[in-house]
């Protein structure tokens, strides 16, 4: 088996040493939004379970999900879902070998930020 001991060689400097850049910030937010979406997913599954159980169970789930707290979670999650979707699309484009130049990657980062805000506004407006 391979040795598990720490390698005795120079290691790459990590996050703290770099100036924040468009590419790194837009990337870390894909990770943050994707994982944070668990909160609203569990909230929605509870809402579905309550709807399938009884009118009174639905009333409590509906109360939480339409409260100011529920509204805040849902609006933030809506943005997170659009942002993560556009971020995933960027990864799929990168996987084909396209858009890897710095300028293209940064432009797609702006599309993710502005696009997710626009899509969130459009979605809220539609309902």
């Amino acid at each position, binding site marked *: *088996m391979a040795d598990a001991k720490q390698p005795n060689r120079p290691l790459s400097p990590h996050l703290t040493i770099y100036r924040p850049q468009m590419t790194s910030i837009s990337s870390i937010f894909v990770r943050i939004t994707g994982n944070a979406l*668990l909160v609203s*997913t569990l909230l929605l599954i509870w809402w579905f379970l309550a709807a399938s159980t009884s009118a009174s169970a639905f009333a409590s789930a509906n109360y939480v999900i*339409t409260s100011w707290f529920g509204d805040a979670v*849902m609006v933030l999650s*809506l943005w997170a879902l659009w942002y993560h979707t556009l971020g995933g699309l960027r990864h799929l484009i990168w996987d084909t070998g396209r858009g890897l130049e710095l300028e293209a990657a940064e432009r797609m980062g702006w599309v993710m930020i502005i696009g997710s805000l626009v899509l969130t506004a459009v*979605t809220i407006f539609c309902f």
Partner: protein
Amino acid sequence: MPFLTDRKRANGMGSAKTGTAQFWGMTISSVALLVLVPGFIFTVGPMIGENHETVTDYFSRPFPALVALLTFIVGLVHFKNGVTVLIEDYVQGLACKIWIIVMTCVSYAAIATAIFAIARIAL
């Protein structure tokens, strides 16, 4: 181990040895979600805040029920694989294993609950 040189142990292994299966799995689920997520937003979204009868009637129909079900199943499998990488990146040792086990169980429990709830509404 003393019989193998470092060169011999590393030869043919690539840099990570494994990982392409995980990557390909994420590619498949992300393409599926590219279609499912907008469908989910525009079917489930308008139902939030509606009364109980409207919600149960709506999800008795095949299309909204299937979009919601598929999005929860594919989304949570995608989440399980994504959160595993997150944990592997930031947590080491035994805690890493425990977190991966816990989040995997949470993901499957959520999938089972979603299937149970939507099936009970739809049927």
